[in-house]
């Protein structure tokens, strides 16, 4: 059984397949068009017209490339058309066709070129498939790929930064890494790392210091710092933010806006640099139009491209990485500096101990300070003559001259009232100027050449520490850092204070000692007879030469005194010690022996009496002494020695020691040993020389050698002129460096 109405399916299919070719062309499920080689459309199907909303009349005669978007038109010229000419066909070209309403129809295009017998192009046949969904999908894929690439680029930036920061050992290293990497990563025109000096939460405005800057003018950084002003702490807390060159900025911060405009910047991005909760500073990135010589920016001039959130995240990360690296580097540097400071103080202590005198000490300390601690070190001392500049050193020998110029004009006493050194002296405490700006410079200097000289030193920070002991202000040490050095830390200031304490103690001791020394010399000078009394038949000469080392005074003495009865009393001696007590003892001794000798002109008896009454005299020191009496008429000479070196006799070109046997020193523990007296004659033309041990000990530690040498020299120098003899003896026996005083007494009998 079959249905008579039923159409045979194969017949139906045949009927369907017997398509009208025209219909097949017009209503094919694809756009179909034919153009001349120059693109003019000569035939187009209905499908394409329907897709584009254009009528065939519209399309015929117009150029296919004019239907494309601008980008598509360029692609047509540079790729599609050349390919067609060269390989005769193109496949799967993605182009956007503009609909009548202006919207775009994403298509895929295939085309073939028909050529004549001569190979010249005659016609181009093209088919277009709508590819909206497919192109959207591709675009999404592409966008995802781009995003992945950007994300990868970001993590590469972070990785590189972390890697580079690990190798950084100084703040400058950290700054250079972070500035270069972030600048490259953000394609910024310039970048700078600006750090807070001191504490960020300082109630006073913390100072800002650009550590490293690239592609940013100093002027811009200065304006930015000024603009941040007192709101700095707030600024730092605000996270990544932008300062855009726009109307409001031009109104509120005209200088900053001008600085941005002149360097072609459109935006400054401020990134906090922090470690944990500590805000250490900011990273500044400058965005702007592309620099001349580079490619034209796709961003319209003056138009601002908002920073995407992903980049802000990146900047945050860079800021935190920089902060942590800074903390680590600072910790490391602080450890190194602590070790350096300890070594510095140790060396300073050694230097202070070795110094010959105060001048030597401060000079060498100043040199040490500029080698280790500061760029400039100046030491002023308060003396009777007022405040004197004892040392002023600059680390850089080339700039020493600038420092000298700055200091030469004025002594501290006539410096400007705001000079930190003066304030330190006045207030008796350390003065620490962290940031020497124009106003501070004006306060600490006098107007004119001096200020300009000081300005040339580019001071960044100054620390003045008073030298004080028990409330007495002895002077002031001033240290300064210039703009090329890291700022002083609290630890540096502590070192300066410890140094000042050391110096103060030495200066104090030296000043006391100098006072005592001066007193001793005055006393000694008053005790020694200036000129021996003139005695007929005798020529006398005396010399007193002080030691060259130290500021000590000796207890050496000589004496020539006319005794009752025409005799002459002679004495040479040496009180133990080199101080005011030694000088005083010498004076006391002289009164006593003169009195005894006047009563009984016997040198040995004199020694016996002095030994016997030593404890009663209340003399604190022991002494060696040689006493004698001389009859100028007969030449009779008597000599006795209490532990003293033998007298020297020069006669007719020969020299010899008188064989006077010395007994114990004056004041030495008693011994059963009576004083001996030598008696003889001082012949006419002979010279008697009495001296203290300084004469023979000066060149050699071995006293016997010294005595031998004295004989040699005396023999050669033997003369009837005692003054000439004294001079020759001193010239040849006493060197330039004398550890001890020398007393010399010479008598020639004529």
């Amino acid at each position, binding site marked *: 059984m079959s249905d008579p109405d039923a159409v045979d399916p194969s017949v139906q299919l045949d009927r369907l397949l017997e398509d009208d070719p025209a219909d097949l062309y017009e209503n094919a499920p694809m756009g179909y068009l034919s153009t001349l*080689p*120059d*693109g003019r459309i000569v035939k187009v199907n209905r499908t394409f017209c329907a897709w584009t909303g254009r009528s065939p009349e519209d399309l015929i005669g117009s*150029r296919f*490339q004019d239907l494309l*978007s*601008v*980008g*598509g*038109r*360029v*692609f047509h*010229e*540079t*790729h599609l*058309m*050349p*390919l067609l*000419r*060269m*390989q005769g066909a*193109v*496949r*799967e*070209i*993605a*182009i*956007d066709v503009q609909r009548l309403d202006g919207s775009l129809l994403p298509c895929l295009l295939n085309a073939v070129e028909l050529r004549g017998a001569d190979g010249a192009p005659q016609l181009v046949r093209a088919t277009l498939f709508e590819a909206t969904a497919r*192109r959207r999908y*591709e*675009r999404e894929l*592409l966008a995802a790929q781009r995003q992945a690439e950007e994300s990868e680029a970001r993590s590469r930036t972070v990785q590189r930064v972390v890697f580079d920061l690990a190798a950084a050992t100084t703040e400058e290293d950290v700054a250079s890494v972070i500035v270069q990497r972030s600048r490259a990563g953000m394609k910024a025109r310039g970048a700078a790392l600006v750090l807070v000096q001191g504490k960020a939460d300082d109630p006073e405005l913390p100072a800002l210091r650009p550590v490293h800057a690239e592609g940013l003018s100093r002027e811009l950084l200065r304006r930015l710092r000024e603009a941040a002003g007192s709101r700095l702490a707030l600024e730092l807390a605000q996270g990544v933010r932008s300062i855009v060159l726009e109307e409001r900025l031009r109104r509120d911060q005209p200088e900053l806006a001008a600085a941005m405009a002149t360097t072609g910047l459109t935006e400054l991005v401020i990134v906090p640099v922090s470690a944990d909760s500590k805000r250490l500073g900011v990273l500044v990135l400058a965005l702007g139009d592309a620099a001349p010589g*580079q*490619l*034209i*920016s*796709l*961003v*319209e001039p003056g138009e601002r491209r908002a920073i995407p959130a992903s980049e802000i995240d990146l900047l945050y990360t860079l800021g935190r990485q920089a902060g942590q690296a800074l903390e680590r580097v600072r910790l490391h540097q602080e450890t190194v500096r602590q070790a350096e400071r300890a070594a510095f103080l140790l060396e300073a202590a050694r230097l202070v101990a070795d110094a010959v005198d105060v001048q030597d000490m401060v000079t060498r300390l100043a040199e040490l300070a500029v080698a280790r601690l500061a760029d400039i070190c100046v030491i002023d001392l308060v003396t009777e003559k007022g405040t004197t500049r004892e040392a002023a050193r600059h680390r850089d020998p080339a700039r020493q001259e600038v420092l000298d110029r700055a200091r030469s004009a004025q002594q501290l006493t006539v410096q400007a009232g705001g000079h930190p050194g003066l304030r330190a002296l006045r207030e008796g405490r350390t003065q620490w100027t962290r940031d020497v700006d124009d106003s501070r410079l004006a306060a600490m200097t006098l107007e004119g050449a001096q200020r300009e000289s000081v300005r040339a030193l580019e001071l960044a920070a100054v620390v003045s520490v008073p030298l004080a002991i028990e409330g007495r202000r002895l002077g002031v040490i001033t240290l300064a850092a210039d703009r090329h050095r890291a700022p002083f830390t609290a630890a540096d200031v502590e070192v300066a204070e410890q140094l000042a304490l050391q110096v103060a103690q030495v200066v104090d001791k030296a000043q006391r000692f100098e006072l005592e020394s001066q007193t001793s010399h005055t006393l000694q000078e008053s005790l020694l007879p200036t000129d021996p009394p003139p005695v007929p038949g005798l020529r006398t000469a005396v010399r007193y030469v002080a030691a060259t080392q130290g500021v000590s005074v000796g207890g050496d003495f000589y004496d020539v005194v006319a005794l009752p009865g025409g005799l002459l009393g002679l004495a040479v001696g040496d009180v133990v010690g080199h101080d005011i007590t030694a000088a005083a003892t010498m004076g006391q001794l002289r009164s006593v022996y003169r009195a005894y000798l006047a009563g009984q002109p016997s040198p040995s008896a004199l020694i016996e009496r002095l030994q016997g009454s030593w404890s009663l005299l209340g003399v604190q020191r022991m002494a060696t002494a040689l006493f004698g009496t001389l009859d100028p008429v007969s030449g009779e000479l008597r000599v006795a020695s209490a532990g003293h070196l033998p007298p020297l006799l020069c006669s007719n070109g020969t020299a010899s020691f008188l064989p006077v046997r010395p007994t114990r020193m004056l004041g030495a523990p008693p011994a059963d040993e009576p004083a001996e007296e030598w008696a003889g004659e001082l012949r006419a033309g002979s010279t008697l020389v009495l001296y203290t041990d300084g004469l023979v000990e000066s060149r050699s530690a071995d006293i016997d050698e010294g005595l031998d040498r004295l004989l040699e020299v005396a023999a050669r120098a033997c003369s009837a002129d005692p003054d000439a003899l004294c001079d020759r003896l001193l010239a040849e026996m006493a060197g330039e460096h004398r550890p001890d005083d020398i007393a010399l007494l010479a008598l020639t009998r004529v």
Partner: protein
Amino acid sequence: MGSVVTRNRVCTSGVPSGRPLVFVHGFGCDQTMWRFVAPAFERDHRVVLFDHVGSGRSDLSAYDPEKYGSLEGYADDIVEICRELGLRDVVLVGHSVAAMMGVLAFRRAPDLFGALVLVGPSPRYVDDGDYVGGFSRTDIAGLLDALDSNHLGWSAEMAPVIMGNADRPDLAAELTNSFCRTAPDIARQFARVTFLSDNRADLADVSVPTLILQCTDDAIAPDAVGEYVHRQIPGSELVRLAATGHVPQLSAPEETSAAIRAFLDR
């Protein structure tokens, strides 16, 4: 021959003693762009063709984004090629962006070049104040997008073959759109360098006879731009072609050859 020849796939033909003609292709395809024009000069000239690094069958491994981040990098290569081949009194025929490469190459080594032929030149594509380049920044952004949609048969799988791994000629033969095929990253950067350069200031330095060929209805280098180049290059000659579009050496090779020859014969 040195690495320069391999790097840029330099091909020479014609009469070795003839005045050298160096044809330089622009952004898009490769040296085959000159296939209908170059042969016309082989009988009396030394003809030199090459591919820019990153295009055609050049050595892609020589592509250095830093160097080719500006037209100067391409100009350096032109100078290198001329020196390598020992050319003198060169006539440089540069199409589109290669016209500007030629100007830069001349500035680098003026002694090498005897004449310039600039086909569809444009010293700056982006409008700037009174200057009309024909494109806005938005247009260029659209172009870069259009390029991203067309990788012309480039795929990661095929890359080794395309890059000259010659042991699979069967694969190479199958490749479509081969003349204009470039690695996507390189194509994108080349497009940026082409359309975002500004060489207006360099034109005044050209001091050899210069021919400017200006097409009709050129969407890339409009009439106004050709006239601008003509005004800026002292003593230059501007010839308007009947050929439409931007690539007269393909769309009207006879007219193009004739114009060049007329210039050379003068």
